[in-house]
């Protein structure tokens, strides 16, 4: 098996739920004469707890459930992949989302049949453009260092406006010395005299119209509060029609029983954020359709 090519599988964390996909990738690679010798979670590589050996692999395969155009792959790892590959080696599973990073790090992009990146045989130095997000030099990472133990891109920023435009305000500093002298203050009321206020205000020219935003005052006497309470009662009646409240804290939500309507949106089980305005489940927690659900969160009121 000496002529076997060596491969590496990198996994998006979500792939741990899909072992069958991983197995499939290993088998397919074997058919192409590639032996997958290592398999790592991408976040382990990202946080440095796994180090990749240089010039070791012929193939690196990244497995992710993301669609090609929404891949979120830490761009700082692109040079890491580059260095882990033998000359002429390939990366599969990434996309043009990272095209620039790939090119900057010396990959060429091959799009004949199966899209992949190739480490050029004649090792060229990565193009050095210092101000981009990915270079081989960690110290040069300009604006963002990536995640600590987390697939999320954690950004830190550096900038220093305080270097700029020194204005010498030392002559004003003296006013801070004798402080706390209440008698020596202006009257706030004098600040709202009409004649002082000629500067005008900015008018906004467009804006989405305001619709259902009104909220009743605490001591509402205009009828809005009654309207709101009626609305609440109506919603609760709907709830009562679809949910049976029983003594043992369990209640059944069942789409199949006649007379128990579902909302038109079909998102009834997903929680209020996804329900349509006429949904009979509005106000109830998210649930799994057809299952008995413990709605202990609503018992307070029963």
């Amino acid at each position, binding site marked *: 098996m000496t002529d076997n090519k060596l491969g590496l599988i990198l996994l998006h*964390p*979500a792939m741990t*739920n899909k072992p069958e996909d991983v197995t499939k990738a290993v088998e397919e690679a074997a058919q192409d004469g590639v032996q997958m010798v290592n398999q790592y979670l991408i976040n382990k590589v990202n946080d440095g707890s796994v180090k990749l050996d240089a010039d070791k692999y012929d193939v690196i395969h990244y497995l992710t*459930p993301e669609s090609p155009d929404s891949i979120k792959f830490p761009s700082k790892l692109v040079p890491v992949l580059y260095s882990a590959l033998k000359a002429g080696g390939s990366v599969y599973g990434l996309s043009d989302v990272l095209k620039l990073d790939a090119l900057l790090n010396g990959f060429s992009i091959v799009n004949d049949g199966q899209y992949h990146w190739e480490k050029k045989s004649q090792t060229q130095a990565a193009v050095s453009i210092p*101000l981009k997000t990915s270079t081989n030099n960690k*110290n*040069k990472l*300009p*604006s963002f260092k990536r995640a600590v133990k987390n*697939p*999320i891109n*954690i*950004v*830190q*920023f*550096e*900038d*220093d*406006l*305080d270097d*700029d435009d020194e*204005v010498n*305000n030392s002559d004003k*500093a003296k*006013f*801070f010395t004798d402080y706390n002298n209440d008698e*020596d*203050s*202006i009257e706030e009321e004098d*600040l*709202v005299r009409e004649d*002082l*206020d000629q*500067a*005008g*205000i*900015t*008018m*906004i*020219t467009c*804006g*989405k119209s*305001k619709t259902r*935003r009104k909220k009743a*005052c*605490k001591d509402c006497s205009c009828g809005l509060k009654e309207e709101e309470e009626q609305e*609440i009662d109506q919603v609760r009646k709907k709830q009562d029609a679809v949910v049976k409240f029983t003594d043992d804290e369990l209640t059944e939500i069942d789409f199949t029983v006649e007379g128990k309507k579902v909302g038109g949106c079909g998102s009834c089980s*997903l*929680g*209020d*954020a*996804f329900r349509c305005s006429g949904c009979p489940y509005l*106000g*109830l*927690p998210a649930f799994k359709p057809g299952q008995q659900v413990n709605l202990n*969160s*609503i*018992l307070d*009121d*029963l």
Partner: protein
Amino acid sequence: MNRSKSSKRIAILYGSETGNAQDFAAILSYKLHRLHLPHTLNSLGDYTPHDILDCRNLFIICSTTGQGELPRNAIEASHGLNKKNTLWSFLKKRNLPADFLNHLSVSFLGLGDSSYPKFNYAIRKLHNRIVSQLGAKELFHRLEADEQSMAGSNKGSGASIEAVYFEYEKRILKYLRETYPTRKVNGQIVERTEFAAEAYLEPPSCLLLDSDEDGHIVQENLTFNGDDSVNVGTVKINDRLTHPEHFQDVRQFVFNGKKAHEYGPGDTISIYPCNSDDSVKQFLEIQPHWKSVADKPLKLSHGIPNNLKDGGFVKPLTLRNLLKYHCDIMSIPRTSFFMKVWTFATDVGRMERGREQLEQQREKLHQFATDEDMQDLFDYCNRPRRSLLEVLQDFPSLKLPWEFALDYLPIIKPRLFSISSGPNDPNIELTIAIVRYKTILRRIRKGICTNFIINLSPGDKFRYKVQNNNLFLNKELKEKPMILISPGVGIAPMMSLIRSDVSKNLKLFFGNRMMERDFLYKEILQDWDKEERITLYTCFSRDPKNSPKFKYVQDILWSIGEFIAKLIHDQGATIYVCGSSNKMPIQVRITILEILKKWVNFEDEDAAIRYMKDMEKDDRYLQETW
């Protein structure tokens, strides 16, 4: 601090009553961070006044109280002993020259409600002092948002206050991009571009496991550190004042502290509530990866963030303690929360329908985070008063990193209550209305603080502070009458005033719904009336049997208008109005003005209006409403 460097060159300052202005400030801050613009974000009250000399660009977002004042967090610091040392008190110094702020570019956004007479007064005061009198340059005319869309920048346009905010934001971002087109990174100049939408900006200080402590479970006594003005009180009485069947639960709440306090009528107590153990448990259930570290000792990478100092910071530092004492997980989440956390919707393992559902949740959270309309968020969270905890329960894809919890979770704030006990009484008495709401969510909504108070029993301990408002120090008041107008829980500070010796001639106007149900302090008030310590006038708005002639306090005032006019004009009476904000204080004010017009011989109506304004200026017309 070497990370997420803050800068004094740009400052976003807010004054906030309900939290709206604060959240808009947080949104603006987030947008600046995305552009790698270092800046200071703070309340006006907590900003270090001297820093104004290093500031070049100042953005102020401020709401207005019902009485046209700046909000409390704009005029005093949240922690420490020298609370009045604020930017605003400094800028009001008369001896500042007219060019004092000429190094500064400013822009203002006021949040107001034109149903109040002093619409957006706070932002106008700030604007006039900072621009007109102290010479700061205004980047563009200020914006004044009106909740009612009837006045200000969105006058008659039907546009919401959010539309006004986003116009403000748009103008600021445009200006800053033009002013700072590049940024410096390791000494090199690069173009200023936004960082990726999915990225999370690491906060200045993060939580870390405290490795020195060996990861053992913490069991030491709780303390709260770093705020010298906070005290620990012990509950003595916590009894219901209203009839058991009355819808509202009003408590007589008495406690004492370790030391005696000096205080007088009109002073207030702030109470620091905490979450129930059950709420914390539910939070950990929905973020199960927090459980294994919940009781382990933690430390902060770069010290305690400023917004956690008010009331002292909990020790020992564990996730469980933070969730219980600092993180407001029962509050209604705001836009800034969604802005920060949507990118953490990554847990496909908890999605019934896998990837598709994950994308669906992610997209919805992103929409809540970025939608300028905010209507869907309002309908989903604000209308039903949905808590942050319940949102997490609806979105199991959210897998929150605990390391940044103090950045994205809102922080519990203290709640203020008027003192009812007499001056300096070591047994401090409060009168507290328990807040409960009914919404489409089945579980009853409770205010975090009142829920905390319901569950306190005699002997229990809690954190509090005393605010001295120095309202009735004038000795001349003693010989003059006082007209106390206080429907409902407004009676609280009146109890203190009656128990003091501020005035010997007190007329108390109390009203509520039903005599037998919510006549607070009925026996004691009736006794005082008999002893002629006060003259008591009552009315009950939903109780025609016991209150046939009058519904509201202003009805009684009008019915004896001639007498009231004499008290005010001839005898120099002081008026003190307390209670719920909204209509009552406005209607009382109108009634008093009409009484003056009708029964005092002013030359014309303007003279009556001027008299009324002078009363307010001379602190003869005082108002404490909430």
